[in-house]
């Protein structure tokens, strides 16, 4: 694996682990999700450069559009959690008792 591939691969893995091991705030998990999207964008941009196919340079732009949708939905859930429970702490989301 070349060094550049290691960089976005490990950034994706780190952000995924940060999403799995979140602690107190819901928005920290959303930030880890955004970091995963950023590393995916860089990975999808490097691929058409190395294969020299111009038509694939569209794919990261499209991915960014849909990741903006996902960020908006996540922030809507953050706002509704704050309006219901008063804070975005994750121990408030305790309906699933298992």
């Amino acid at each position: 694996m070349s060094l550049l591939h290691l960089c976005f691969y490990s950034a994706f893995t780190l952000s995924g682990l940060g999403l799995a091991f979140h602690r107190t705030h819901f928005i920290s998990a959303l930030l880890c999700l955004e970091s995963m999207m950023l590393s995916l964008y860089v990975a999808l941009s490097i691929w058409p450069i190395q294969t020299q196919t111009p038509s694939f340079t569209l794919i990261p732009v499209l991915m960014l559009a849909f990741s903006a949708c996902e960020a908006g939905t996540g922030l809507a859930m953050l706002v509704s959690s704050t309006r219901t429970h008063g804070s975005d702490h994750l121990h408030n989301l305790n309906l699933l008792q298992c």
Partner: protein
Amino acid sequence: MTYFIFFLGLCFILGALAVASNPSPYYGVLGLVLGSVVGCGWLLSLGVSFISLVLFLVYLGGMLVVFVYSVSLAADPFPETWGDWRVLGYGVGLVLVVFVGMVVGNFVGVGVQGVNTVDCGGAVSIRMDFSGVAMFYSLGAGMFLVAGWGLLLTLFVVLELVRGLSRGAIRAV
């Protein structure tokens, strides 16, 4: 120049580490801003300046600005910085995960392959990234309509999520 690109890649990993070690959200956003600025610089050094500017405008200037002022909902009276032992423990553990992954995956060394140019092999009047994204409006018009429809749908999804008064998806108050 090669080492500059390596430095940008390393700063990208550091930005992801800063977000993943879960400090208080104020510092997490800082790591994300660093990661996106360095990612833009990385794409610039590879030559695709249009893709880099799209990332800068849409991601850093659009989405991250919204995240920065949404962080104000998560106000802590005593925010945890990267000096706290909990955050530092997470950071060290995550770095260990990366190193073990490098050893297991047989990551050999710092050899870099040649960087291809974006002028389509010498035909300098054609830029690879500009012409590729411009296909969105010619051959990819169907995908354009689908993406626009999805974005419009997201507005209604957000509306239904935050609506209350016992008709909402989450707020049943």
